Structure formats: structure tokens, C-alpha cells
């Protein structure tokens, strides 16, 4: 096994850290956290939650596995390595909602066994396909009757407020959350809400009153008594359950609820073109069998589905259209697809950020994929966003050793639509230019025309 290195995002908790090698993931439990580890494991809660798929599996291993890195640890555990890490600001609304519900469900179950969670970070949830899983097994510790919910603020900042931004204001959380990586502060959300939105009792409690108390306490430090506020278990559970019910009912203000209804309508291949594209993708996936496929411009996920059915193991879908992402997520859950749709602006992908700009990995750090799909995608960058065709091909081909790229001609209705209100300054946008750019970087294994308007799929392979 190669050396296991500390994960750049794991440093805040002195109780232990996550170490990652090429194909294994370990977590140290330091003496500081050993007592809590022992007592929570004795209750069996972590094992039970893992058995139900709510929490990531945890297996104690000998400390020598980590060599010097494990010397000072009291315990070392191993977790299965997740093939892809994603962040709450990349998730669609329903994914963030499912993550929030998972967190609350885990916490409620813990309290039944006298265990509590020490934090409520949305970054403690990862996705396996379209299923959220709780990964921070160091967060479990014994519950002390009467203790307040230390992580309430963090839950609001990182789960509730971003969801409310969309549910009450119709504003997708992604851009704001990405910039404000610790979440959306309650005082800012309170300022943004219109009066009518503030009238619901839940909003009054968890946003308006919360913000008022926060502001008020800044102007007048309450001194030591604050440490003596008690939260009885019954009240604690009531708060968690109330939040669970409320979060479960939230829906995007801009009609995202129709996503479930529309799902049935976009379920089948509606045209010859779609069918031949799907067939090409299937043959590609069957031949290359990628462990991880990146589907750029995944739309509602139908081509990811074709790839997954034909031999791809996991597909990460990327799209700019929030509505399409949500449809893809719904499809992935309904059909049990190993597909995780994420928000992406290809001209501004997730950057590496956080502490030392390394804590949260940018898109490039999570590359390469095993294969890439870019269907009905290139013209959005090359025409709509004015990125030179050469740059686009360069970027795409750099993401994976092999893939399928669709080229849409300038006289195609899709491109004509983009140019409808603009001057055509794209002299260089042509099939010849595209092929030249592609051949300069990879071998073209196969080409197929998939529409009467001349759309072509190119299967490329890099050395």
C-alpha cells in the first residue's frame, strides 16, 4: 500500500484525522477522543446505522497499517473509499434536502441510544450515486442530558438556510454557498426575506428570531450565564423532529415540485436521434467500461443511464441548468442509477478553496475521469460563451483518456438559436476546425452522424 496521506480537508477536529492512500481510507482516533469513541461504539449505534446504509462502514484496523502516522492514535479505523467527493454547493436542491434529512434522521436515531452528534456540517455527507451517506464517524459522542445542540447554528448555516434561499426566494443556493463556504449566515438570510415569508412559525423561529437574538447578543454580551442554558432531551428531539418535518416539506419556490411529474414525460427516447446517440454511448461504455464517467451537459441523465446500463460503473453528471439537474437526480433515485448530478458552470468550475486553497478540491483536482461524455455541449462553450474551439477541445480531452464528444454544425437549429440575436463572429467554428483540434490531441476511434442536421459523435482516445 502506498503511503496514506492526511486528507487536506481533515484538520479541524483534534479528535482525529482522515488519511487517504491510493485505494484506502483510514481515520485515526486520538487519545483525546478515545473515551467517546469507546462508549459510542459500545452502544452499537454506528454499526446499526452503517448496516442500514445511513453511515459509512467502519472497520477497526491495527495501528501499524499507518506506520508513523498512526503511532500516537488510540485507534485506527478503515472506511470504504468513495470514488468521488462532492460538495454541498455542487448539489441540486433535492440532494441538499436529502442530505439534511439524513443528518436529522441520524441524529434522532443517535439520541435514542444516548448518543449525540458534535457537529452538523454538510460536508460530513457524501453521495454514493444519488444516495447520501454520513461519513464523519468521529462526530458521535455520548449525550449528556440537558446539553444544548452545539451544532444548531451550523445546521442552519449549512443545510437549512441554503434550502430556504431556494424554497422561499427561488434563488439556487449554489453560487452563494460556494462563495460562503461555511454556509449562509442566518442574519443575511433574514435580511433577504420579504415580510410575507417571515410569517410562518418555522421561519419566525429558526430565521427571524434566531437572527434577532444573534444580533442582540452581539450588542450586549450575556456573560457566563449563557453556558447554563439547558435543553431537555424532549425539547431537543422536538426541535430535531420539527426541523425534519419542515425540511421534508420544502420545495423550490420556482416550481421545482413539478420535477417529479415531468420525470415520467422525459423518460423515453423521443426521437431517432436520441436513440442513435444512446446506442453509440452504449457501445462506447461496453468497450471502455469506465469506473468513473463524467457526463458534461448531462441534462436529465438519459445518456448517463445508457452508459451505466452498458458497462460504466459510476457516472458524475454535470450541468448548468438547475431544473435539468433536479430531473437527473430524481431519475437516478427512481431508477436506482449510480448517477450523481452536480451543478457546473464549465466556464467557472468549482475552484480549489478553503484553508490554503486546498481544503475543498476543485474540479481539476478531482480529475481525471476514466471517460468523458460531452453531448450537445461544445457549442454552448464555443458559441454561447465565446471560448475558442481549440481551448474547448483541449479542456475536454484533458479530462479523461477517452470519451465521446458531439459536434453540432453551425447551421444546425441548436446553434442557429444561439446566434439568433448575435453577430456571427465564429468563423473558426466548423467541423473541419473541430476535427483538426481533436486529431492534434487524440486518435479518433469512431465517428457517426446521429441526426439529419449533421450532428456527429466522435469517440476519441488519447495515448
Amino acid at each position, binding site marked *: 500500500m502506498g503511503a496514506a496521506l492526511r486528507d487536506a480537508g481533515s484538520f479541524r477536529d*483534534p479528535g482525529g484525522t482522515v488519511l487517504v492512500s491510493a485505494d484506502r481510507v483510514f481515520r485515526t482516533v486520538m487519545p483525546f477522543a478515545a473515551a467517546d469513541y469507546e462508549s459510542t461504539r459500545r452502544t452499537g449505534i454506528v454499526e446499526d446505522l452503517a448496516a442500514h446504509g445511513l453511515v459509512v462502514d467502519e472497520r477497526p484496523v491495527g495501528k501499524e497499517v499507518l506506520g508513523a502516522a498512526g503511532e500516537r492514535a488510540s485507534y485506527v479505523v478503515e472506511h470504504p473509499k468513495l470514488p468521488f467527493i462532492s460538495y454541498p454547493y455542487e448539489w441540486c436542491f433535492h440532494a441538499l434536502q436529502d442530505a439534511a434529512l439524513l443528518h436529522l434522521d441520524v441524529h434522532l436515531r443517535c439520541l435514542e441510544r444516548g448518543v449525540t452528534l*458534535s457537529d452538523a456540517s454538510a460536508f460530513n455527507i457524501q453521495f454514493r450515486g444519488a444516495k447520501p451517506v454520513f461519513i464523519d464517524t468521529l462526530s458521535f459522542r455520548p449525550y449528556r442530558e440537558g446539553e*444544548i445542540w452545539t451544532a444548531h*447554528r451550523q445546521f442552519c448555516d449549512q443545510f437549512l438556510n441554503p434550502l430556504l434561499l431556494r424554497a422561499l426566494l427561488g434563488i439556487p443556493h449554489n453560487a452563494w454557498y460556494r462563495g460562503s463556504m461555511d454556509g449562509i449566515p442566518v442574519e443575511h438570510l433574514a435580511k433577504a426575506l420579504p415580510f410575507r415569508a417571515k410569517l410562518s412559525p418555522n421561519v419566525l423561529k429558526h430565521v427571524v428570531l434566531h437572527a434577532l437574538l444573534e444580533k442582540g*447578543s452581539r450588542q450586549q454580551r*450575556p456573560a457566563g450565564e*449563557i*453556558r447554563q442554558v*439547558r435543553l431537555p432531551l424532549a425539547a431537543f428531539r422536538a426541535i430535531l423532529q420539527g426541523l425534519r418535518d419542515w425540511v421534508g416539506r420544502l420545495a423550490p419556490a420556482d416550481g421545482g415540485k413539478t420535477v417529479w411529474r415531468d420525470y415520467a414525460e422525459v423518460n423515453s427516447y423521443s426521437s431517432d436521434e436520441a436513440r442513435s446517440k444512446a446506442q453509440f454511448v452504449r457501445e462506447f461504455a461496453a468497450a471502455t467500461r469506465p469506473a468513473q464517467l463524467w457526463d458534461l451537459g448531462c441534462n436529465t441523465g438519459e445518456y448517463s443511464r445508457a452508459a451505466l446500463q452498458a458497462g460504466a460503473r459510476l457516472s458524475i453528471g454535470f450541468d448548468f441548468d438547475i431544473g435539468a439537474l433536479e430531473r437527473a437526480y430524481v431519475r437516478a433515485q427512481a431508477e436506482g442509477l449510480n448517477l450523481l448530478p452536480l451543478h457546473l458552470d464549465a466556464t467557472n468550475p468549482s475552484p480549489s478553496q478553503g484553508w490554503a486553497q486546498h481544503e475543498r478540491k476543485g474540479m481539476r483536482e478531482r480529475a481525471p475521469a476514466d471517460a468523458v461524455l460531452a453531448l450537445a455541449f461544445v457549442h454552448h462553450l464555443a458559441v454561447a460563451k465565446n471560448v475558442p474551439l481549440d481551448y474547448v477541445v483541449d479542456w475536454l480531452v484533458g479530462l479523461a483518456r477517452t470519451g465521446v464528444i458531439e459536434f453540432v454544425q453551425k447551421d444546425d437549429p441548436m446553434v442557429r438559436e444561439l446566434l439568433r440575436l448575435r453577430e456571427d463572429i465564429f468563423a473558426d467554428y466548423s467541423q473541419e476546425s473541430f476535427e483538426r483540434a481533436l486529431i492534434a490531441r487524440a486518435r479518433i476511434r469512431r465517428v457517426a452522424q446521429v441526426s439529419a442536421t449533421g450532428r456527429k459523435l466522435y469517440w476519441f482516445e488519447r495515448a
Partner: protein
Amino acid sequence: MKPSYFIVAACLLAATGPAHAYLDPTTGSILLQGLLAGIAGIVVVLRLYWARLKAFFRNLLGKA
């Protein structure tokens, strides 16, 4: 505030605090939980704002 209120509050209070929470829970969150928890919490908040409440009523009555 009558001393009896303080006694009631004191009875309901217990010194608790998380052991190794690396999180800063923030005062507003704690106060909110206190309020949501009921009477004991309300008492703590009232104590916090008592000085301001007194000043407010003094002003009101002073002007009248």
C-alpha cells in the same frame, strides 16, 4: 425582577457544556434553543434583556 423568579430559574439551571466541541455554537443559537425549550430559557433571555426592558419602560413612563 422578584428574587423568587431567580430561585425558580436557578433550580432549572444546571451547568452543562459540551466536552470537546470544536464548534462555536454562537450566542443567538443558544438563546433560541433556550426559548424553544420553554420557561427556563425564557427566564434566561428575560434576564439578559432586563436592563433594556427597564430602560424602555422608564422612558415610557417618564414621558407620560
